[in-house]
């Protein structure tokens, strides 16, 4: 039974590798396009179920390199649900390769699972790089130039993260996160420690696509296929944020070393995300900027450096991951500017409802998942006395909601173009039984996440507690 906890990882990796190899060597028959996505989504949902069932046991593996605690349970459950929904809701004909399109989100999810279970900095780094590499592969299918850019920017981010980890290791003499925290309890925060932490924060911010480090990742995300964009905006950011939460927990004895950076990045990201979302009109860039804004809220929760703040961030992270990953996937091929989504609500009601809910949730509009998470973070900020950051965050949210309403107007209140004039630029996402089911479940999850949020928030709170936060 002890190893049942690793079953979800095994299912995800086996599915990903199986699909990759099957695609490469032609094991799948011609008609496999019809059943591969539902099969993959089903397997991920099975993994999700196993995670919820078996993941409650607290244990460690591989000599303590991986731990299964409440944080890992929360993050893994979130990523599995996200990946399952994204695979189900994706507009598969608009993807460049079904096999790679199926495998990469699974590998990215595996990266997040590794990072969230990691007990030391090596595991964190490995999980983060795996998630990011999966995104590079998926982007390269459509835009090799952008993939190269993502690889280069990712290399810089990776270097910064490695430098930060190396310095923390050198300072504390430990790579293990718990041991690191124990050592830091007796240390005073110094500039010499704060500067490497700043580099580490910058590296993670680049990986997460947080403003002002969002430029490279965002551009790349916009050029990728729908699922690729979701991977860059959602799962990679989820991996980076999971790493950031674990690092913050390790650094919690000396909050002065990172809170300033976190507050500055958070404030900037929220306002820039809201302003950016208002400034653009196309749906996918708007989704991307809204995601940047919500990531800023998550960073704001990390800046509070105590349990309820981190728990609020974790709760919001789940909502963010689902909306940011599935939003572009639901949008599908209707991503060629505003005309492509004009009146989409009339012709693709369920998909459109999903896109609308994803946008509103990322904007923090009540009563959706993002709103509950942002309000929980806001409560933590108030307890922390961070009213300036709170004010900036609320300003950013108002801008974000205004931007989301602008897209809703196009989705629902403009008339769809005539079919004869639609053309490739305004092609409609394909409707299948799987995509309908995916969109329906996505809508239910986003609506119910906050309204029935007690057990989810309770798990997030336990997750923060598991990281040693008080």
């Amino acid at each position: 039974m002890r190893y049942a906890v690793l079953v979800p990882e095994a299912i995800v990796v086996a599915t990903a590798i199986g699909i990759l190899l099957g695609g490469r060597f032609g094991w799948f028959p011609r008609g496999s396009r019809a059943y591969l996505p539902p099969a993959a989504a089903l397997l991920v949902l099975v993994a999700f179920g196993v995670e919820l069932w078996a993941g409650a046991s607290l244990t460690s593996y591989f000599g303590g390199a991986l731990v299964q605690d409440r944080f890992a349970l929360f993050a893994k459950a979130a990523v599995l649900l996200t990946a399952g929904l994204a695979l189900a809701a994706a507009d598969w004909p608009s993807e460049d390769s079904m096999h790679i399109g199926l495998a990469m989100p699974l590998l990215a999810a595996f990266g997040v699972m590794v990072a969230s279970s990691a007990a030391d900095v090596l595991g964190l780094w490995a999980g983060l790089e795996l998630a990011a590499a999966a995104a590079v592969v998926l982007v390269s299918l459509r835009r090799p130039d952008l993939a190269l850019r993502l690889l280069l920017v990712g290399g810089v981010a990776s270097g910064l993260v490695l430098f930060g980890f190396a310095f923390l290791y050198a300072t504390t003499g430990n790579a293990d996160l718990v041991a690191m925290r124990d050592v830091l309890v007796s240390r005073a925060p110094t500039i010499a420690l704060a500067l490497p932490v700043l580099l580490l924060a910058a590296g993670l911010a680049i990986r997460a696509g947080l403003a002002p480090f969002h430029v490279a990742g965002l551009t790349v995300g916009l050029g990728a296929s729908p699922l690729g964009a979701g991977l860059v905006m959602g799962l990679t950011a989820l991996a980076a944020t999971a790493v950031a939460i674990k690092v913050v927990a390790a650094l919690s004895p000396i909050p002065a070393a990172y809170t300033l950076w976190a507050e500055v990045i958070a404030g900037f990201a929220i306002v820039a995300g809201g302003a950016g979302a208002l400034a653009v009109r196309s749906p996918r860039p708007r989704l991307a900027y809204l995601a940047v804004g919500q990531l800023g809220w998550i960073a704001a929760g990390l800046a509070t450096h105590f349990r309820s703040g981190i728990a609020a961030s974790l709760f919001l992270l789940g909502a963010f991951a689902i909306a940011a990953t599935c939003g572009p996937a639901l949008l599908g091929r209707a991503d060629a500017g505003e005309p492509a989504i004009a009146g989409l609500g009339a012709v693709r009601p369920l998909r459109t409802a999903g896109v609308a809910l994803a946008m509103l949730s990322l904007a923090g509009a009540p009563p959706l998942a993002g709103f509950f998470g942002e309000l929980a973070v806001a409560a933590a900020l108030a307890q922390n006395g961070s009213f300036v950051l709170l004010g900036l965050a609320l300003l950013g949210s108002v801008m974000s909601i205004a931007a989301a309403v602008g897209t809703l107007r196009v989705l629902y209140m403009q008339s769809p173009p005539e079919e004869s004039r639609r053309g490739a630029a305004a092609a409609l996402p394909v409707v299948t039984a799987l995509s309908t089911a995916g969109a329906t479940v996505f809508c239910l999850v986003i609506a119910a996440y906050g309204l029935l949020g007690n057990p989810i928030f309770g798990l997030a709170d336990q997750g923060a507690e598991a990281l040693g936060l008080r």
Partner: protein
Amino acid sequence: MTLIAITTQTVGAGIFSSAFLLSLLIWVPVVAAIAIGLMPNPRGRYDTLVKQIAFFTNLGTMFILFIAYNQFENFLPTMQYEEKLPWLPAIGVTYHLGVDGPGIAMLMLSGLVGIAAMLASLGVRERVRSHFALLLLAESSITGAIVARDMFVLVLFWGASIVPLALLILGWGGPRRAAASWRLIGYWGLGTAALLVGVLALYAATGGRTFDMDTLFQTRLSSRIQLGVSVAVIVAAATRLPLFPLHGWLRDALAEAPPGVTIVIAGAASRLGAFLILRVVIGGEPAAAHLLSPVLAALAALTVGYAGLAALRSLDLRHAGAYLAMVPGGLTVLGIAAVSPLGIAGSVLSLFTGGLAAALIAGVCATVSERAQTRSLRLLSGLAPRMPNLAWLMTLGAFALLGVPVLASFSAQVMTFFGAMKNQPVGGFAVAAGLAVVAVALAVLVGRVLFGAPNPDAPGVSDSSLGETWYLGILAGALLWVGVFPGGPKIPGTDTPLFDPGFILQTSAGVSDLASSYTLPIPGASP
């Protein structure tokens, strides 16, 4: 187990007893909205059915509400029909609902305005499903904000009303709908942000354990914190009511929105501003209420005076109607600024009467401009003979704004002014002066539009349709009913109420509790 550990206090419930009565009022329209939104409607084949579902949903909730109103115990100072469920216990959020006198007044207002809005929207032809679904969602969020007894729940519903109303303006509004919608989002969004800052400051100051109003308001806070929280709440309320100078959204929103949406905004959604001040500042922060009462009186005077002058200068009928709809808000705030039992009772009544009056004047201006095919006051003249129904309704709306006897707003204004003249005489006189300007503006408007010389260059006009007469008639009728029977009609020769126990009596419940911090000590009484 905690999820089903429901605290039910069925005080107020009699023949019709439900532990979820308030939840029904909130969530039934949401369910109906979702059903309407998901209903297949190829080429508008089921438009009529959609309208019927929406209308009967409102009628049903109004029926439940009327029973709740009848069974409301007016002698109890406590909350009634209370529901309490743990929601997010980790941060102290409770699904806590309840109503007192001011709450039931607001609920009745919201219910009546909801039915009127449905009737006003029967003429919608485009995207019928979306229109009625959004209208139901807007009404549901307003109801939620009224009955919320947890600050988190209040912010949730307060903010939730923005998106549907903005979309309704954006989708079905007049030529300047985009600007109107963005302004509404901007002002209301900033108001929500201010409310959230105030709520979170209160939450943090009380130890960050709960958002429950019962606990938050019972905690003794320093005057400084009370002042900070109250200022944030007043800013939020001023954007919603609106009060000068945070009224920038009002003209365009009320002038560009379709009539049904106009009356929801002017009648119910805006009144939430005054209700918020009453609930949080008056009910929870007495020290700050005393300190800020002159500011509130000044805001009330500025609002009424500005509204009168702006309406007087306006050359657009709907703009004039929008400005005039600001007046009741100013009067309600004057009653609050009095910080006396009489003033507060007047402001509670004024919530209801002011909402109806604002909805009536804004609605009638919208309908007249639609029926006359122009909004220009240069063209609109001498319409009374050609639109007698609307002429009557417009006159009633004008009378309601001015508080003419026989209409319910008379009682509200008498109480408000009597309360204000004692504690805020300067503010009271200033508001009275502003009201005189409003009277002049109304006289000019009514005189020109209804009784001026007919304009041969004006487009053709027609009187209101049956639906329009009904929706405006409901608003005017409610004002007349409460004005004629403030204590409810009685069986002749007895004190037994016929079917209405009396609006003033029912809404007085809890007012004494709200005003308990503002009663003067009796001379010679032992402490």
